[in-house]
């Protein structure tokens, strides 16, 4: 079975090592030597990224370890992105950056993915002749409002001008403090319509599920014109977001000529999807839109696969975790969103990023890592903008918002062809107006194949691959 594959494809036989490894998708034995010492390193408490030689020995890492990045990477990136150097690059300035993420609890995996990328980006920026980003990582358990408030207050009180955040519940708890302290909050991990237009707060991802649905609609029209009947299944996060997703699907159904059969939700804490499967069974749709995220996708697919139902599942999310949990049941799963395909990096900057990330951490970067990586570069872009206008990027205030409004386009590791892709943020919705996305399918070996690319909005630039 696929699950067996996943567990047996790593080399060596040390049991503890297998469990300790978080990157079970990794194929080659490049990091084998490091994995063996991983648990020891972890046990000594010096690092969680057990497969890496980067042990980030300080709480606020500024990327001092040279092992995690080659000194040429910075220069390459500067060249790729066509960046200035010296004073214009804000060299010599130290900017404190808050990072709010899950460092413990059930979803600590996200904190790991985010933080590794931020560290790497900070290092690259420094090597590229940019400022020193003093990253202050704090735990928010992804949904703990109390922690969100405490972290935002700490940063606010100590003058941190910009924060990389994650998790909608914590983001919301931080919102009042973004405006109170005039501190910019960036959310590269996820975006919805609910987060639009909040003062000092910007989302740098596609909006789930509205943005994806255009691509899905276009793909099905091109490839499966017979697919008409649709249901959506999801986890009930909150009435507002559930409704948002339902409405988006209804609208797309209307504009695409689908017949919408309904939306079914399971409790967010569940590990059992039998009610959803039973509802799909009686609705008999042609395809199922799946608003389940993270590892839960894998659990759902695992249970769906045994139900004998054949309607394809098209989701808005895919992580290696889902694949690991689902085993062979992942086969045939399709998804559409701003997925980062690390096996085939879409542009030159992305290639460099993947290589550097693998070198540093011994695992392929996921889309979370890619998002936080480029968002950290967005911070540098804003800093340069501020410096150019002789502002002070180390201070809270309106400078960051003005910088972003003045230059809302920023380079991205997403977007195919050329040196780098581009994302663009709207000064009114504070959300992306341009974001390169892909439509993919996972095959029986757990490999992701890109079937189409598209972009946000009415001019979706939809292209079959």
């Amino acid at each position, binding site marked *: 079975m696929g699950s067996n594959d996943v567990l047996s494809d790593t080399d060596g036989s040390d049991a503890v090592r297998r469990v300790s490894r978080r990157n079970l998708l990794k194929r080659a034995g490049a990091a084998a030597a490091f994995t063996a010492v991983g648990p020891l390193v972890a046990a000594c408490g010096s690092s969680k990224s057990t497969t890496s030689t980067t042990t980030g*020995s300080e709480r606020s890492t500024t990327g001092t370890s040279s092992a995690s990045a080659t000194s040429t990477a910075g220069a390459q990136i500067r060249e790729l992105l066509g960046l200035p150097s010296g004073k214009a690059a804000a060299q010599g300035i130290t900017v404190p950056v808050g990072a709010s993420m899950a460092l413990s609890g059930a979803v600590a995996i996200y904190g790991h993915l985010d933080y590794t990328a931020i560290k790497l980006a900070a290092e690259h920026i420094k090597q590229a002749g940019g400022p020193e980003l003093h990253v202050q990582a704090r735990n928010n358990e992804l949904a703990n*409002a109390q922690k969100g408030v405490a972290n935002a207050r700490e940063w606010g*009180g100590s003058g941190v001008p910009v924060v990389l955040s994650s998790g909608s519940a914590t983001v*919301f708890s931080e919102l009042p403090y973004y405006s109170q302290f005039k501190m910019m909050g960036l959310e590269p991990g996820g975006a919805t319509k609910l987060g639009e237009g909040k003062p000092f707060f910007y989302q740098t991802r596609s909006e789930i599920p509205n943005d994806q649905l255009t691509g899905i609609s276009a793909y099905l029209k091109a490839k499966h014109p017979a697919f008409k009947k649709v249901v959506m299944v999801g986890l009930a996060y909150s009435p507002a977001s559930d409704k948002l997703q339902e409405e988006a699907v209804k609208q797309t159904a209307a504009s695409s000529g689908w017949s919408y059969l309904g939306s079914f939700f399971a409790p967010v804490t569940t590990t059992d999807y039998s009610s959803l499967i039973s509802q799909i069974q009686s609705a008999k749709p042609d395809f199922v839109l799946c608003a389940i995220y993270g590892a839960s996708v894998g659990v759902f697919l695992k249970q769906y696969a045994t139900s004998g139902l054949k309607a394809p599942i098209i989701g808005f999310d895919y992580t290696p975790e889902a694949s690991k949990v689902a085993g062979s049941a992942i086969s045939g799963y399709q998804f559409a969103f701003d997925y980062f395909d690390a096996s085939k990096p879409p542009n030159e900057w992305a290639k460099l990023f993947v290589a550097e990330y693998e070198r540093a951490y011994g695992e392929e970067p996921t889309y979370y890592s890619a998002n936080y990586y480029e968002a950290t570069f967005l911070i540098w872009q804003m800093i340069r903008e501020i410096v150019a206008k002789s502002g002070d990027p180390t201070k809270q205030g309106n400078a960051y918002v003005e910088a972003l409004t003045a230059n809302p386009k920023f380079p991205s590791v997403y977007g195919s062809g050329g040196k780098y892709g581009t994302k663009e943020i709207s000064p009114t919705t504070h959300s992306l107006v341009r974001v390169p996305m892909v439509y993919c399918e996972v095959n029986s070996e757990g490999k992701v194949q890109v079937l189409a690319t598209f972009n946000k909005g009415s001019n979706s630039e939809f292209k079959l691959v």
Partner: protein
Amino acid sequence: MSFWVNVLNEALITVIFAVSVNVILGVAGQLSVASVGLGGIGGYFAAYLSAKHGVAFAPALAVGTSAAFLAGLALGVPALRLSQEYVILLTLAFGIVVTAVIEAIPALEGTNGLIGIHTVSLGGPLRTPGELFRLVALITAGCLLFCWRLSSSPFGRVLRGIRDDSDATQSVGKNVIAFKILTFAWTAAVAGVAGVTLVYYNEIASPSSFNFATMTTVVAAVVVGGIASLSGAFAGAIVLTFIGPFLEKVVNIAPESATLWQLVIYGVLLVGVMRVRPEGLIPEGAWGSWVSRLAAYHHIPGERLAVEFASAPVTVLADQGGSPRAAATAADRTAVPSVRPPTTNSTLPGAAAFAPQRSERGRGDPHGGEAHGPGRAGALRPEANSQVAAVAATGLVKHFGGIVAVQDLSLELATGKVTALVGPNGAGKTTVFNLLTGRIRPDAGRVRLHGREVTGMPPHRIAALGMVRSFQDVRTLERLSLLDNVALGVLNQPGERMLNLFFAPWTVRSGERTARERSMRCLEYVGLAHRAHDLAGGLGYGDRKLLAVARLLATGGDVLLIDEPAAGIDRANLEPVLRVVERLRADGKTVCLVEHNLDVVARLSDHVLFMEEGRITEEGTMSEITQDKRLAQVYFGHV
């Protein structure tokens, strides 16, 4: 700096939750874990009013607190009749329902939380942790004061009584139900205040602030601190809140694994504290005992005297009144030679300070008018009342399922006499006590006390009318001092009313002094005054029986039902108990004993009722009963 001020504020808000849990769980012994959920109700009411309707802080606080109060009231009613494990389940379900409802109502913004709460103004807007500290500290101090007053007053003494033995507390005249409901409601209000403070402090109302995990943290804080001491709850909340941020700053390694290590250390500390100090950091009465001892020396002159007695508790002194007569009457009535009753220089404490109690009893008591001076009960003259039955029960019937425990039983307890209820095991003697004192309701039949119908009344009302009972298994409140054990029996203390606690502290103060003086005299009466400040848990079995009698005396009741005074005591410790009963008779109390030891019955009783299979089959003097041929054959064998 603002980092630590923020932690301090969070800690103080946790303190409010903790003291609320402390009172309901630690002091009143109701295993309620609803506080955090109740805080959620208060918090969300206030947040909604502020964010959606622009209501100011003070009215929002009032509404939030009231909402929590009402919810607590509503929760208290079903919790009353549940055993403790179901109180846990009920309140656990309550908490989960609260967060689930919050997450399900669209207007409350689900898991994202409700933002847009207006900033509080207190001489300028309060936004930073430093500015908000003033508000949080003020509110926390208020809540602490409230809970301290509640738990360290006579009100709190009743709660501790309920915690340790609800039945015993009710049997000495406390309306247990009212106390429980009030406590549920007021601790809910405190939790509501905490919830409102929290949402205003955070500027967001989020379900994650009021979920199961928060609840476990608060309960852990209370247990770690010391479950029944307010200072313990305070310490626990502070320690548990500070430990995370402290570790965050001290365990200064890569943040990813540092967080996990911090949590591991946190968990190890929880386990470790419980292992090393299972009673918590500050156990109940850790410093309270010497504080109250100090206070006692200060306020009550009588106590100094009492402590001087310590070396000779049963010294025989010249008695002022009852004793010679008692000795004489005792000699008249029984063949057993009487010893001189144990006496101190005290007379039986009266009820002078507690007028309401006396007047209430007076209404139903034809002899009430004859009482004179302080201590009407003690001054009742047996010769004047001996013909009248203090208690008259007629036609009592009680079935348990198919078993008839008591059938068609009638009895009278003659005023000022000692009546003994004897009979084989399972004859229904204790059930008779339960029926007389209202602990169980008879299926048929009536009970009159001093001519007044008391059938169907709850135990605390019957106790207030003057009939109190002790229990076979004694039921001393082990975690309370002897003095508090006895003081619990004093009826209608001003300090047991919440309004008085906060609006008439002087009345409470003088009431408490009177209650303590009276309790001290009761302890002197039974010869335990020298141990007044020891915990009752340290007493021997015989002394516990004496303590139980002292508690009965404190109620001022004149009909005392004593269940097995001699059982379980060795010969050496028996004598003081018997002497006290004799003295009670001498002082004119109406006493009914259930007793198996026939020597004791013979020595103490004026009249004997013989019970078999739920009815009284013989009655008369001890010698009449023992000479009955049938009874002698069946039960007394050797006679």
